[in-house]
């Protein structure tokens, strides 16, 4: 069930759109629900869809399209690393390899201590700082090198 608090927050978002265009608020609604719950389940997506009067499959499309949405439990720190063309040209693959080795996980997996999870992401529009990654969709780290990655992980771990 969606909690009262969640619904209040969604209602606040809904005010930004006309009454017959409720589905415009789906991204915001899913974000709110994800913050509350940690990740999105099929049921939660369906509830969001019902609340916004839209087909469930349409909400599903949105939830699966953006990799900021988690469809299964993520680690405490979710590292999303860009592998698109600009980052790839700046050796993002090396950073990915390094991260995978260091954390002993593959993409879309969580470390045993549930601290880190790794995600492959699309271009974040900051190619000037390639290669780059974000942590928990919020904090961005640019000009990555294996050494810098080690440093960031240590900081997060402590």
């Amino acid at each position, binding site marked *: 069930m969606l909690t009262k608090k969640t619904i209040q927050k969604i209602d606040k978002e809904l005010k930004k759109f006309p009454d017959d265009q409720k589905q415009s608020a789906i991204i915001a609604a899913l974000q709110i629900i994800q913050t509350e719950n940690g990740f999105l389940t*099929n049921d939660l997506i*369906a509830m969001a869809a019902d609340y916004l009067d839209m087909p469930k*499959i349409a909400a599903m499309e949105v939830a699966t399209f953006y990799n900021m949405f988690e469809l299964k439990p993520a680690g405490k720190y979710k590292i999303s690393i860009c592998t698109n063309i600009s980052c790839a040209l700046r050796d993002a693959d090396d950073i990915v390899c390094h991260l995978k080795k260091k954390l002993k996980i593959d993409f879309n997996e969580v470390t045993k201590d549930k601290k880190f999870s790794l995600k492959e992401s699309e271009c974040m529009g900051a190619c000037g700082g390639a290669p780059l990654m974000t942590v928990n969709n919020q904090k961005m780290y640019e000009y990555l090198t294996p050494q810098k990655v080690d440093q960031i992980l240590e900081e997060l771990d402590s």
Partner: protein
Amino acid sequence: MVKVWWLKLMIKIKINGKDLEVKPKTSIIEVADQVGIDIPRFCYHKKLSVAANCRMCLVEVKNFAKPLPACATQVMEGMEIFTKSKFTKDTQKSVMEFLLINHPLDCPICDQGGECDLQDTAVAYGASKTRYTEEKRVVFDKNIGPLISTDLTRCIQCTRCVRFLKEVGGMAELGLVGRGEHAEISAYVDKSVESELSGNIIDLCPVGALTSKPFRYSARSWELVRRNTVSCHDSLGSNIEVHVKDNIIKRVIPKENESINECWISDRDRFSYQGLYHKDRINNPLKKVKNQWKEIDWEEAYELIKNKINTINTKKPNQLGILCSPQTTIEEGFLLKKISKQLNTTHIDHRLLEKSFSKNNNWLGCKIEEIESHDSILVVGSNLKNDQPLLAHRFRRFAMKNNSFSIITSYDDFNSTPCLGKIIVNPSTYLNYLLEILKEVQSVTKYKINSESIKNALKQIKVSKETKKISESLTRDKSKNAIFIGHQVLAQIEGDNIKIIAMHIAKAIGATFGVIPGYANSVGLSELNLSLDEVNTDEVINQKKESFIMINFDPYFDYHSPKKITKALKSAKFNIAISPFVSDSLKEFDIVLPMTPPTETSGTYMNMEKRLQSFAAVTPPHGKSRPGWKILRVLANFLELEDFSYDSSDEIKVEAIEEINKNYSHNIKDFENSKKNKIPQGLELISPIRAIDSDMIVRRASALHQNENIDQAFAYINPKTMLKENLIDDQKIKVSSEEAEITIKIKSDEKVSLNSILIFGKQLATASLGMNHKLKIKRSS
């Protein structure tokens, strides 16, 4: 003077150096299609919104550095387009290469092979070799129901199916889940696609990702013979193309006819062919010997009938009752009428579900194409999606565009469509709502009503808010409106009164009035004036007969009162059934003549807009069965009736059309403010008929019924009514009508009107209840 190019009626463009004058605001691909220039495409479809995601239609346009998608680019003054230049060709080749990267090379085992857009386009526009050596992606198939099989690895993400179900089907049931390389077509978590038009996505799919499940692996497209005919299931008369191999129908696809079915058909029309080959189908005439069916030959059958019929005293009128299904062709209907005349009976009819029999205006009242040209529309008492699945699409499109569509009905199966006014009530109250509208309309237009009984009825009427809204939209200045009455209304006792009031409203506002007829030839047989004004099916059944002839229907399912018809059959001495199928419901008959279904006979149907459509047999008769018109002709000759020497159905057609052109006038009944008008106490039984139960053939089509247990039907009740009546979901209750008592499980359904119980008609488990009767509930644990 300043030249304002966007106001100009026509603009000049060039395609491949050829000068063209075209309408502004058309896309390049539309222009190319009009003048017959081929541009390859996958995602573009003329009836769907533009997605421009396959990129196959890229063309070179002068002064643009990049190629432009022809489907999403509008023509502009002076535009020069090149569809065959090297630049365009290279672009097409590159796009083709990308599309084929993840497409499996499994054409030999793919049902689409031989009729595949991707195959054809790859040959015409692609490279002859692949440069791709890496791994291809694999997508797991999903089960989206018994009609459509999926091979999603073959999908090229054109999203035609997604757009079809959203825009034409009215419910987004499929979506593109995931992103980029991981994108795949999916329904929401293991759901199946339930749209009544879902089969069309099989035709729309440009590759073999969505194929027909019942047809799967049963033939290759080049082995099939294609023959055109007309669908026999609803009164739209959809044009279909039947694909035949070894004289067996393998599948059915739509044949484009913009003014009837556009380029779609409903699932009922598409998959009903399976019913033709059901085990109940008979090959020889059957005679009942000691309650067992015994096969006999035609000669013997005719002799037997002749002997029996000759014992009837034809001096006395109406000793013989003739009932035929509303799917009977015009030719057969005409012969029946002729036979009945010579056998001195007027007891002949085709209206099996109706309880109201007035004969005027029993057609759509306008062309099918004109429906959407109205300014506002009111539909009364039709379960559009079930009664006329494809016509419903036109109403839906109208509603989406105009926001002036209103509906008064008892089962809201149109709930994904925005309606201006929506009144979901019991059929017994339709009349009151229409009287409200009439009163409101009358006060605006000052329309004069002469009938005293209507005046009296109007006196007691108070206009509610909802009907006021509907009336307002109907009486807007200079608007051209329409009122349509569903076929289900005529299945109510009050049907005629409802019709009269609706016609008055239409007259008051100068609107189109029409009835949406139920079956393929309902209109044709009415126009033939099969029965006299005062005769109707109930009359035929209620009066004692020596003998009955029943043609092409199942008395137990297709007549609204199985008890009465069984009683009538029992009391008659000799009953003849002419039917493609035999089943338990024919146990009161003495002889069954195997008649071919419409796919195996030539004939003519008149659809809801009074359009005559003739068709020829698409396959030869099954076994020794014979077309209905031949059976009747030979029967008449055996009975030594006069003037039955027809050589072909065309000869009969000519005479039948003469008969139709006689334009019979009918007595128009006046409004009766009768006692039946009273609203019944307790719960009302509503019996809409599901699209997949409407006639003998579809009831036997296995794929359409695959997901259900035939022994089990449900009663649907509005949750609010359940609360009031102290009922809970999945509870078993006993319900009884005048006809029978059955135990049934209930389910809550918000789409059902209050204070009613909805049990779909013509289902095996519930047919004994009859249709649209009063109902009593007894609880059981």
